[in-house]
């Protein structure tokens, strides 16, 4: 019970969050954060634990989102059904690729996921009759308030983390890690590496697809460039994974929190700080800088990728002892 104390407290705090903070803006950020916890945990399972790095999580995310969107677009069903089937659609999309690529060593899986995402993005844009093309799909949100979405997102985040934590501490989890560490050794011990890689991919694709369906329901609008975006979804998923800590259970949650904050910092120009400074000082240079920064979030992501891999390759959770010793040494020196 004791080792679960901190997560339970965090969960309770998150459950109480909408009661304390009623501001829609912060609720919106929290919903995004929880959605990224789901995606980050899923990416972490396939890349961090099983060692098969996916560069195209957007393919699964977009499949889930389109599954929900198309249900309501064509069949006039509620898009909430997407939560039930979106994950399975993503699994169906990912499985054939995994089945082909997992037989081969090397960068094939990484490239295949990248290619899969591109194919889906172009297909969704071309098949106008079916997907609405670049116009996208617009649905009416079910709730006006953000609170119901918040609790759905919280439930999904908790469910994904618990299920993934459960599986990595069960037998398949140890198989996943053994595949990552030494595939030959794993095979010689009689582990069906192909099967377990597929299993890992299926779970990861499922949760990413569910997150996609949640996005469709919450945002009410998707188009191919939004949900199949390389930078905003695939790279963001990788960043969430590696900033927090690859191969750790709580890493993705930490990473999601940091990355959503960073994304919002750029989008809002450091929460309007530069805009404020521009108005306060009346200088045109600062104001134009505010505009520049607002448009620079991809650059920021790129620099973050480079810096994190160089300095904190195992993420904040994974490299925590290193960070702590760095700070404590400073204290002694001071």
């Amino acid at each position, binding site marked *: 019970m004791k080792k679960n104390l901190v997560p339970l407290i965090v969960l309770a705090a998150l459950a109480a969050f909408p009661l304390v903070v009623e501001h829609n803006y912060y609720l919106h950020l929290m919903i995004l954060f929880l959605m990224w916890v789901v995606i980050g945990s899923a990416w972490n399972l396939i*890349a*961090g634990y099983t*060692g098969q*790095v996916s*560069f195209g999580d957007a393919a699964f995310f977009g499949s889930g989102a389109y599954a929900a969107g198309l249900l309501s677009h064509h069949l006039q069903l509620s898009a909430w059904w997407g939560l039930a089937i979106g994950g399975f659609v993503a699994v169906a999309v990912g499985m054939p*690729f995994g089945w*082909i*690529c997992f*037989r*081969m060593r*090397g*960068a*094939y899986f*990484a*490239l*295949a996921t*990248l*290619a*899969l995402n*591109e*194919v889906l993005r*172009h*297909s969704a844009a*071309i098949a106008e009759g079916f997907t609405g093309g670049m116009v996208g799909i617009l649905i009416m949100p079910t709730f006006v308030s953000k609170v119901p979405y918040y609790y759905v997102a919280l439930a999904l985040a908790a469910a994904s983390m618990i299920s993934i934590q459960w599986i990595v501490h069960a037998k398949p989890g140890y198989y996943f890690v053994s595949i*990552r560490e030494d595939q030959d050794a794993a095979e010689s011990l009689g582990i069906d590496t192909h099967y377990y890689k597929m299993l890992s991919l299926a779970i990861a694709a499922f949760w990413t697809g569910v997150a996609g369906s949640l996005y469709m329901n919450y945002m009410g609008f998707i188009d191919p460039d939004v949900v199949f975006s*390389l*930078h905003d979804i695939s*790279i963001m998923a*990788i960043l969430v994974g*590696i900033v927090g800590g*690859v*191969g750790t259970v709580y890493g993705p949650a930490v990473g999601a929190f940091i990355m959503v904050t960073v994304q919002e910092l750029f989008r809002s120009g450091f929460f309007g700080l530069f805009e404020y400074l521009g108005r306060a000082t009346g200088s045109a240079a600062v104001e134009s800088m505010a505009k*520049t920064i607002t448009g*620079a979030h*991809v*650059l920021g*992501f*790129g*620099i*973050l*990728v*480079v810096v994190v*891999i*160089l300095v904190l*390759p*195992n993420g904040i959770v*994974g490299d925590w002892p290193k960070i702590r010793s760095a700070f404590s040494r400073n204290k002694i020196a001071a």
Partner: protein
Amino acid sequence: MDVFLQTLVAGVLKGGLYALIGIGMTLIMGVMGIINLAHGQLMMVAMYITYVLHLAGVDPYISLFVAMPGLFLIGCLIQHYLLNPLLKVETILPENQVLMTVGIGMVLTEVVRFIFKSDYKSVSTGYSNATFFLGDISFSVALVISFFIAIAFTVAMFFFLIKTDIGRSIRATAQDKDAAVLMGVNTGRITIVTFGLGSALVAAAGSLLAPVFYVFPDIGGPFTARAFIITILGGLGSTVGAIFGGVTLGLAESFGATYISMDYENIIGMTIFVLVLLFLPGGFKRLTKV
């Protein structure tokens, strides 16, 4: 029949340039063992160098001699300061070098976007739209010149790899890094030179493409995709394979555009990619053993 021949010609001409892109990629793949996902973005930088020189009145084919050394330098710096240090970093995440190249690609694209904005620029020269006819088949002058320069570079590359000391060291490192070290090859320096060479080759492709293409910051992504499709198609690390892969992709794209639809140009490459993974994993290298 004319349409068929015309498509064939267009495909082969484009394929020559793709081969140049593919050789750069496959060199890096062979020596470093990683896929360079910033390859198209490096080409984009070379295109902008050509564009800037074009504004100053320099012909794209002359700016080749600025873009190639420039990109060679950029490639060396990337390898030395960003990729080689990762070998010493202990991490449980495999492929963090590949991830690093993705980051580098993003930074390159966005820095260029800052300087030049997202607008489409064109490097239009007197021969950009010029054509000549052989029978009923029209040839784009710019593409034909580019094709022959690309072939010249490819041949030069082969001589370099086969005849020179550095070339032999590169091949030795690609075949067996540990054995190369034992033979006295400074593999650290070889990786730096190789990344530089790969970047210089793709820079050549960029300068050659500039007169017939638009130049814009996001052009890198699609060409990175083409580069890795060519590499997979040819076989990882195979230089001969990269040439076949490049021409095959060029042909497939132009036949697809003629006989299926222009819309599917980007999907055709990916379809080939999947087919190769299914039926010929290992690419042309498996057939030719080169």
